[in-house]
């Protein structure tokens, strides 16, 4: 692909916004444009980012997954609880990933086989997983397993003076790479695009609709579960009450990353940028120190609006859902 394809314009716009936001921050505040802040950004956004990679697949397939935040919290408390009762951390994580993915399969199955709206099914998933988290343990559990206390801190790379790339950030970047590969270099990934673009055509082209859809939800659940594990790395605890509303951040990041909410168009690296933009806005507001936190919401809302209108302009105003 040599020429500038119009489909890259949203991605380009996202990159420009990312650059603009970052330079704004660097211009305004000392210490903002340092490697440390960048590393922090990756670290702080890791679990949202991992979950957003999964969310991207569902949105690309033309659906939506609202259960992301609950899944992250659920997996967090599950892992913390299992570790508390003395499980091996890898076994606990493995189980958590399996349980999470299974939940995704169930949701995808309901959506596909019974033709239920994704919005409602994953909303039910949101409620269920949140409740289940509280069933496991209603309070925050700290993790003091040696793996978390001693091994994890060593799994980091010094990328610049005073800037250590932690393992969580590596998980995030790894997820983006894996996600990009799956989206662009596997048949499943291409099928997701096809279904999101035009499900009926995809069916008549002989693509496996059911399998692809269910896999997309399973993959989203897998990434959310992974996000939950990353969150336990990040906070060294699990809390069933946490991460409420994370799904909105994830969806916002995906949209700001240039993915069309109707499906079929978008890139995983865009999601990475979208997540970073959200994180940067929050950072600027924290750096400012006098702006109230609600400005975060207002700015994200405004940014969403801008991107939605941009996408609308690029898709030419046609192509409306009937």
């Amino acid at each position, binding site marked *: 692909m040599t020429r500038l394809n119009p489909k890259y314009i949203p991605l380009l*716009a996202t990159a420009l916004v990312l650059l603009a*936001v970052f330079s704004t921050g660097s211009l305004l505040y000392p210490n903002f444009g340092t490697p440390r802040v960048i590393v922090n950004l990756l670290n702080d956004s890791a679990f949202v980012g991992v979950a957003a990679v999964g969310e991207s697949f569902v949105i690309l397939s033309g659906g939506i997954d609202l259960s992301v935040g609950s899944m992250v919290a659920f997996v967090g408390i599950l892992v913390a609880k299992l570790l508390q009762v003395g499980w091996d951390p890898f076994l606990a994580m493995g189980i958590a990933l399996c349980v999470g993915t299974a939940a995704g399969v169930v949701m995808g199955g309901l959506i596909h086989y019974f033709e239920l709206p994704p919005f409602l099914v994953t909303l039910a998933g949101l409620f269920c997983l949140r409740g289940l988290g509280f069933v496991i343990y209603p309070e925050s559990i700290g993790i003091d397993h040696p793996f978390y206390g001693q091994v994890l801190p060593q799994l980091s790379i010094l990328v610049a003076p005073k800037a250590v790339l932690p393992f969580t950030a590596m998980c995030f970047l790894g997820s983006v790479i894996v996600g990009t590969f799956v989206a662009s270099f596997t048949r499943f990934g291409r099928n997701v695009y096809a279904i999101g673009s035009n499900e009926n055509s995809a069916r008549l082209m002989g693509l496996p609709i059911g399998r692809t859809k269910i896999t997309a939800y399973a993959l989203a659940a897998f990434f959310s579960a992974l996000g939950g594990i990353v969150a336990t790395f990040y906070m060294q605890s699990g809390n069933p*009450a946490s991460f409420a509303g994370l799904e909105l951040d994830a969806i916002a990041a995906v949209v700001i990353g240039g993915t069309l909410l109707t499906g079929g168009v978008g890139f995983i690296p865009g999601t990475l940028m979208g997540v970073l933009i959200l994180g940067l806005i929050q950072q600027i507001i924290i750096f400012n120190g006098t702006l109230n936190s609600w400005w975060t919401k207002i700015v994200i809302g*405004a940014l969403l609006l801008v991107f939605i209108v*941009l996408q609308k302009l690029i898709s030419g105003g046609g192509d409306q859902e009937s």
Partner: protein
Amino acid sequence: MANGLGCVRARNQHLQPQNMKIAPSYRTIVALLAFPTLCTLTQLLALAADTAQKKLVVGFSQVGAESGWRTANTESIKSEAQKRGIDLRFSDAQQKQENQIKAIRSFIAQGVDVIAFSPVVETGFEPVLQEAKKAGIPVVLSDRAVKVSDPSLYVTFLGSDFVEEGRRAANAVAKLTGGKANIAELVGTVGSAPAIDRKKGFEEVLSKYPDMKIIMSQSGDFTRAKGKEVMEAFLKAPNAKEINVLFAHNDDMALGAIQAMEEAGIKPGQDIKIVSIDGVRGAFEAMKDGKLNVTVECNPLLGPQLFDLIEKVANKEEVPKRVVSQEGVYDQAQAAAELPKRQY
């Protein structure tokens, strides 16, 4: 019909070849760039007004704005910082731990002199506090504690003793009822430190009184709306008549519950004695009207005490590991006198 599957999105296929024009998108990109630029400009103006001089820089991460108590606490901290000429970087975590961790990490990156925060939950701050320690920034806890394996991760903790508050509430109940009580309990947000500790302290004392027992207990999330809704449900239970005491983990829930009682034709403060914690202005008003019996103070006006500590910490002075804020227990008799002093 036979062509049931076709046609659904037929329009898409009939779209004319798309124009490959990029012109409109340039316009949007310009529009996109205008936004941050505008932000930049306004910020620069704000900065210019703020003549930078060497001040003590403190980063404070607040839980959120979930209750009247919390907003009073925030106000106290902000105004005190302004009074002392301290450069306060205030961040509101919106009750999300992840936001709080982000904020603390950001404070480290900003290179503030002291970090203070009221943790949303007790666990999970170890890694970020270790970072602060490595960066040589002292940490002061306010209002709520954290659980860490290494106590050197924070310098000092200023705040109420929630367990003690629970104990005081239970003692107040005992005093009100002479040790005979069927208690309905409005629990705070599940999993939060005040809810856990207040319940713990309350039950600790309760175990000494065989005739005092909790017959109903349900979370009201520290909010008035939930407090009211849950109380309504309590009052419809078949054993509702047995309730003679309400213990609410904070005043907001108690105020909600009072409304529910009044609607049920029950006289709050008489038919059902009410004991709650916090001591916000609304509670004192309710006490003055005889609708609330006792509030155990949990002082939100931590600003002055907090900055005393912070300044000491910044000057590398020795401070105690635990500072309990000064607070009392108020009943109806004291309410009228105390009310004018309550500005929140």
